[in-house]
C-alpha cells in the first residue's frame, strides 16, 4: 500500500475507534432524552466525575482519600456508584421538575453541571489526570499490513458495540424496556397501566449513568481528564446523537463513529481543526438532513 493511502487508512481506523468512545458518550444522553425528554446538560460532567471516581479509587497516594484499589475492583464500584447516583438524581431532583415542561430540568442539570465541575476543581485542582490500566493503554495489535491499532481503542469499540446491542435488546425485548417505551410515549396512560413512572424514570437515568461510568473510565485510560472537560464531552455526545438521528441506539453509535472519523480527518489536516471539523459535519447534517442520518422509520410497537 502506498504511504499516503496507508496514512489515510490509519486516520480512518483511528476515527472509527474514537467514534466508539463518542458513541458510548452519546447512547447515555440519548437514553435519558428518549425516555424522559430531558436533555441532561450535566452529561459531560458526569463522564468526568466517573473518571475521577475511578482515578481516586485506584490511586495509592497523592489524593485524599487514596484507597489504592486495583482497577478490576474499582471499575464495578464506580459503575454501581454512578447507577445509584443516577437513581437518586432522577428520583430526588429531576422527577419533581419534569411536570413543568422542558425548561426546569434543563436548568437544573445546568446547575448540576456547574456544581460537579467546581467540586472537582476544589478537591482535585485543574490538573489533568489519567487512569492507569496496567499497560493496556500502550499495547497495540497489527490489524492488517502496516495498520496497527491500540488494544484499548479496539476494546472501547467492542464495549460500545456490546452496550449498544444490550440497550437495543433491553428496550425491544424485555419488560423494563417496554416500561421505558411506554413511559416515554405517554406517562399518564403508562401510569394507568400500572407502571410506576417515577421509578421507571429513575431506573432509566441510573442505567444511563452506568453507561456514563464505563465511558468515563475508558476516556480516562485513553487520555487525560480535567474538571473543565465536561462541556466538550457533552457537545460531542450531543453531536453524535443529532448526526445519528433519534431512531435507535445503533443510529446513535453510528453518529458517534461519523463524528470520530470527521474529527480524525480534521486533526490530520491540521491539528487545530479536529473538533472544528466535527462541528462542521454536525452543522452540515443539521442543514441538509435535520432528522439525522438514521431517524426512526417506523413507530415502534
Amino acid at each position: 500500500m502506498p504511504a499516503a493511502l496507508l496514512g489515510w487508512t490509519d486516520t480512518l481506523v483511528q476515527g472509527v475507534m474514537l467514534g466508539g468512545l463518542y458513541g458510548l458518550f452519546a447512547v447515555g444522553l440519548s437514553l435519558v432524552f428518549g425516555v424522559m425528554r430531558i436533555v441532561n446538560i450535566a452529561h459531560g460532567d458526569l463522564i468526568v466525575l466517573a473518571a475521577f471516581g475511578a482515578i481516586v479509587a485506584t490511586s495509592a497516594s497523592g489524593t485524599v482519600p487514596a484507597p489504592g484499589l486495583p482497577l478490576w475492583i474499582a471499575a464495578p464500584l464506580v459503575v454501581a456508584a454512578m447507577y445509584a447516583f443516577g437513581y437518586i438524581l432522577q428520583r430526588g431532583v429531576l422527577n419533581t421538575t419534569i411536570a413543568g415542561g422542558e425548561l426546569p430540568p434543563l436548568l437544573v442539570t445546568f446547575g448540576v453541571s456547574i456544581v460537579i465541575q467546581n467540586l472537582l476543581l476544589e478537591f482535585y485542582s485543574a490538573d489533568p489526570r489519567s487512569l492507569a490500566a496496567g499497560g493496556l493503554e500502550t499495547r497495540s495489535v497489527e490489524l492488517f499490513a502496516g495498520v496497527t491499532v491500540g488494544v484499548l481503542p479496539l476494546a472501547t469499540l467492542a464495549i460500545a458495540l456490546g452496550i449498544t446491542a444490550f440497550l437495543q435488546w433491553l428496550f425491544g425485548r424485555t419488560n423494563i424496556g417496554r416500561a421505558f417505551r411506554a413511559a416515554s410515549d405517554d406517562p399518564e396512560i403508562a401510569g394507568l397501566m400500572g407502571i410506576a413512572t417515577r421509578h421507571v424514570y429513575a431506573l432509566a437515568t441510573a442505567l444511563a449513568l452506568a453507561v456514563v461510568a464505563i465511558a468515563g473510565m475508558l476516556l480516562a485510560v485513553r487520555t487525560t481528564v480535567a474538571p473543565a472537560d465536561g462541556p466538550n464531552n457533552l457537545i460531542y455526545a450531543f453531536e453524535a446523537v443529532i448526526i445519528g438521528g433519534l431512531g435507535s441506539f445503533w443510529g446513535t453509535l453510528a453518529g458517534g463513529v461519523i463524528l470520530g472519523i470527521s474529527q480524525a480527518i480534521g486533526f490530520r489536516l491540521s491539528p487545530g481543526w479536529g473538533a472544528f471539523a466535527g462541528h462542521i459535519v454536525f452543522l452540515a447534517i443539521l442543514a441538509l438532513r435535520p432528522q439525522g442520518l438514521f431517524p426512526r422509520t417506523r413507530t415502534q410497537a
Partner: protein
Amino acid sequence: MTAPDTGPSSAHWRVSQSTRAGRFGLLVWAALLAAAAALPWWADASYMRLATEFACLLVLAQMWNLLAGYGGMVSVGQQGYLGIGGYALIALADYGGINPFACVLLAGGVAAAVSVPTAALVFRLQGGHFAIGTWVVAEVFRLVASNTAALGGGSGRSLQAMREFARALREPLTYWIGLAVAAASVTGVYLLMRSRLGLALAALRDSEVAAESQGVNVRFTKVLVYVLSALGCGVAGALYFLMNLRISPDAAFTVGWSAAIIFIVVIGGIGTIEGPIIGTLLYFALRETLADFGTWYLIALGIVAIVAMVRFPKGIWGTLAERYGLYLFPVQRRVVRDP
C-alpha cells in the same frame, strides 16, 4: 371569575396593562436613572467599572429572559453573540478606524446579522436540543476567533484604537453608554412585551399550535426575537470589551457567561422584567461578598439555582408578584372593570 353583573353589555369592561405599582415603578425608574447618570460626579472609577459590568450583565439577562422567559427558547449559546460583539468592536475600531464608542451599536448589528443564518440552522432543533445546538454554534465562533491571526488568535488582542482617548474621558463615556444600553434593554423589552408582538410571543410560548391557529406567524416571531436577543448580546459584548480593553476567545466565548445569565434570570424570576434586575443585583452582591471563597462560591450559586428551580420556579420576583399582585413593569393584560 365572577360574571359582570351589569348584564350582557360589556361596555364597562376593558383590557388594561396599567397598574398602580406600574405607574409608581415608572417614577422610581426615572429617579434611579437620573441618579445613575450623575454617578461619575459622586463615585470613583472602580464603581463606574462595576456599574458598567452590571449594565452588561443586566442587558444579557434581559436578552436571555426575552428569548427563554418570554419566547420559550432556552439558549446556552448567547455568549456566541457576546463574543461576536466584542470581536466586531475590535475589528471595526482597530481595522475600520471607526470611533470605538460608536462601534458598540454597530457591533450589535454585526451580531444580529450573524444570527439570521444561524437561526436557520439552530431552529431545526427543539427544546433542549436547541439549547445545546446554540452552544455548539458559540464553540464554532470561538474556534474561528482563535484560529484568526488578525484577531489575535488564541491569546487574543487589545483594543488599540482606545489609546487616543484619555482615561478621564474614556471611563465616564463607557459608563454612560452602559447606562443608556441597560435602560434601553429594560425599556425595549417592556415596550416589546406590551406590543402586539409581545402578545404573539406570550401566546406561542404557551402553545405554538394555538398561537398559529390565531394567526400568529410563529416562525417569523421566533426568528425576530432571536435576532433581537443577538443584537442585545452583541451590544453587551462590545460594551464589556470596551471597558475591559482586551479580548481573548476564552474570555469572550466561555459558557460561564451563560451560567451567570441563567443564574440571574432563574433566581430573579424568569418571564418577568423585574426578575433579571433583581437577579443581577443579587448576583453582584454575592460576587462582591463571596468572591474570596473561589470555587465554593460557584458551587453555592449552582446549588441555589437548583433549589430555586425545584422549590421556587418563578424566582424571587415571580413569587412576590404572585403573592402581592405587584407589577412594576406591567406587561400582563388584565380585564378590569371601570367604575
